[in-house]
């Protein structure tokens, strides 16, 4: 094992900063998004501390408003959206396809630097004094009334959007043109299908948020009447444009997570994924239907009730492909040989939490019920079940699953399982009480609240501190494992998939010779057992 791999082949700083290797770019993304994850997490923790009591004691209104804006923007635009695609997708897509790199390696590096540039704008907006509009930038508050650094923040998101667009483009071309011989569309790992569907959403949706933020900037900077009725604009136009991107963005966050789950479950059940084609096509169905449901964020906004009816109906339809996936993952376990390693714990946790998140989504799609719980903690709980219970669980599961491939080392299994449990318990304690708070009517984005809501808020804050520990542990033991972990070997899980046929960590050119694929995906029946138990 003295051969050079993608990490050891050159130690110079320049070789990292100017690298065209998708694996190195993925690692740089990993460091950047981890920073933003903990930054957004700190903001959340401060908010939860403030909400321990009904009065304002930790922070005052102005600071609180900036905290939830910072939390939302960093988590959505700088962690969840790039998260799985830019780190795991970047690292794995060429490996899974049997390719030496993405189709456009220079474009990939450009994406990374656009992300960094956007992130610097966002950070400077935060350091200069913050933004208080919420991550949703609703007009005319953001375009006329707010006295904070809205334009700097919007420029940051605008630039980062192009990072997404170029990554999406790169993934689509790579999937079409760079598949190894024999790797037909229906032999692709579902991780690839999920990223392929996600890339289309990114490509079609992201330009709309870019233009929308540009329009907010024009109204703010030059008083062009677009969204502010005082200038002759229409505030609901902003919401239509914003959610035309930001609802599909939810699927940008969850589809890659579903891709991760579809890899982990067959490996740790030693069985082919149940209903491969249904799972693949449901990713595409979600990508298409996801574009037609944005108006469900606007049922009570003053939108016509007939528009509400149409958006409600379409929102129910988008639930069906998600349900199909859940049933297929569960059915995969049937008659499998199940290993409860850390990635599998995260994956099973994902199924449970995503199911609750999805079913509460059904409640929100029901017009009459949404009228009551809209903009309350019920919504907060619902989308955190999808984004945190879903995407972050899958992201952590994926990081553990492919850590041996990325780092060449095994993570400590005991600590892995322990932190997975802590995350699961802390998550539920944080967010389940928020469903009840929401139905009681507690509005979101308030630092003070009526005293009868205190007990549930205390529970939620207690959960958040447990969740924080659950997130810190992997940071510590994964870094530890890079230096002291057991060497992994090419395929520690005896998993299928081309990424496991090369050494760990892989060489810069991924494969000595381009592999030829002769078997279907997830052909686990003939695979040996998992040696590390």
């Amino acid at each position, binding site marked *: 094992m003295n051969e050079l791999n993608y990490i050891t082949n050159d130690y110079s700083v320049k070789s990292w900063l100017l690298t065209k290797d998708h694996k190195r770019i993925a690692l740089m993304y990993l460091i950047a998004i981890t920073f933003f994850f903990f930054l957004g997490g700190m903001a959340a923790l401060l908010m939860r501390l403030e909400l321990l009591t009904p009065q304002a004691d930790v922070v005052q209104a102005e600071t609180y408003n900036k905290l939830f804006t910072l939390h939302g923007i960093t988590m959505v635009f700088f962690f969840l959206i790039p998260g799985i695609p830019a780190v795991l997708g970047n690292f794995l897509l060429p490996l899974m396809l049997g390719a030496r790199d993405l189709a456009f390696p220079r474009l990939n590096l450009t994406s990374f630097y656009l992300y960094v540039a956007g992130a610097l704008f966002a950070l400077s907006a935060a350091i200069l004094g913050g933004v208080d509009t919420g991550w949703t930038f609703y007009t005319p508050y953001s375009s006329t009334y707010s006295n904070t650094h809205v334009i700097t923040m919007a420029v940051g998101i605008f630039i980062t959007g192009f990072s997404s667009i170029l990554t999406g483009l790169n993934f689509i071309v790579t999937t079409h043109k760079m598949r190894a011989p024999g790797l037909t569309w229906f032999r692709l790992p579902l991780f690839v299908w999920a990223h392929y569907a996600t890339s289309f959403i990114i490509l079609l949706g992201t330009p709309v948020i870019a233009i929308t933020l540009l329009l907010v900037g024009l109204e703010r900077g030059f008083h062009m009447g677009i969204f502010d009725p005082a200038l002759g604009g229409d505030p609901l136009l902003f919401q239509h444009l914003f959610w035309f991107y930001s609802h599909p963005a939810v699927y940008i966050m969850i589809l890659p997570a579903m891709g991760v789950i579809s890899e982990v479950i067959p490996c740790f059940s030693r069985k082919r994924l149940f209903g491969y084609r249904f799972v693949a096509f449901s990713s595409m169905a979600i990508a298409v239907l996801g574009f037609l449901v944005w108006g469900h964020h606007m049922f009570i906004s003053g939108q016509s009730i007939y528009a509400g009816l149409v958006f409600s109906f379409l929102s129910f339809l988008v639930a069906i492909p998600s349900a199909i996936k859940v049933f297929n993952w*569960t059915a995969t376990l049937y008659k499998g040989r199940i290993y409860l390693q850390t990635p599998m714990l995260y994956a099973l946790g994902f199924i449970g939490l995503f199911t609750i998140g999805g079913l509460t989504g059904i409640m929100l799609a*029901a017009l009459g019920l949404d009228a009551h719980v809209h903009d309350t903690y019920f919504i907060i709980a619902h989308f955190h079940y999808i984004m945190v219970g879903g995407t972050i669980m899958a992201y952590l599961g994926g990081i553990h699953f492919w850590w041996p491939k990325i780092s060449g080392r095994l993570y400590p299994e005991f600590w892995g399982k322990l932190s997975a449990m802590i995350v699961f318990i802390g998550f539920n304690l944080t967010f389940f009480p928020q469903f009840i708070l929401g*139905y*009681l009517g507690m509005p979101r984005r308030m630092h003070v609240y009526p005293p009868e809501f205190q007990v549930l808020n205390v529970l939620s804050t207690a959960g958040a501190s447990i969740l924080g520990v659950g997130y810190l542990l992997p940071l510590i033991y994964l870094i530890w494992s890079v230096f002291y972990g057991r060497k992994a070997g090419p395929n520690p899980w005896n998993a299928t998939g081309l990424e496991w046929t090369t050494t760990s960590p892989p060489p810069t050119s991924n494969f000595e010779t381009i592999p030829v694929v002769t078997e279907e995906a997830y052909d686990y029946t003939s695979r040996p057992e998992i040696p590390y138990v």
Partner: protein
Amino acid sequence: MWNFPLFPDQASTFAPAVDSLLAFLLVVTAFFSLLIALLILFFAIKYHHKSVADRRGAVDSHLPLELVWTAIPLAIVIVVFLWGARVFYQMKTIPSHALEIFVVGKQWMWKIQHPEGQREINTLHVPMGRPIELTMISEDVIHDFAVPAFRIKQDVLPGRYTKQWFQATKTGEYHLFCNQYCGTLHAQMIGTIIVMTPVDYAHWLSGGDSESTMSSPVTGLTSLVMGGNTLFNKEFNCISCHKHDGTGQGPSLQGLFGRKVELEGGGFVTVDEGYIRESILQPNAKIVKGYKPVMPTYQGQLQETDITQLLAYIESLKGSP
């Protein structure tokens, strides 16, 4: 400490309808969540790699099964869609005999005008058992009028009226929240809805009750219609053009409210609050057929509360010939 609510008050006719829908969906959610969770636990134990279970005949696709678990959720969501739509339709269909109260939201307070002229800030007194229609507008950013005990919520927009109605079923005091983030003191844009028996309400209307200085009705009240009358006929002298006999430069407003009128350049518009407001602030946007665009704008000269009074007055001309 341990005496805290887990379920909100049911204080309007909508509350039982929304809660029944919730109850149904809770059953659905509990059923599927438990089904999935128990299956996962069961499989994880039974087919644990160390267990000696019968694993013969495992399959990795099954078309009838796929169709079943597509069709069942589809059927359920269609039921939920229709149910939710029905409840929402009731929430948005305002009974014709409702008592109309005007609400103006601004950073960071609620200003309420009762038709009889009482004004309140951050407090709304309403009678139990009578449909109340809220006509709402914002002076600045988007706000949201939410009363959890009534299960109602409606955004309040600048530049445009939105409506919400309810019928309270239980006397008491209930939270009023602004549920749309509206700037620094958003969290303090809260208020109280006070539901009274019709007798107490009548007493309050006549100035007999003043629970707090913020909400005490002013004595010597002018009703909205009377206030509008003064604005229309004296202060702004609208009557000089909008003569009641129709001989003025502008159309007569007698009996106009609620009617459909033909526009210059084709098309029709129903005369409602929104159209009247637009015609005062941007008179040339929609000209009634046969008239010329000669009216000046009153943008900047009228407060939202003045426009409300004019609206009430013009609406009161509905019954006239």
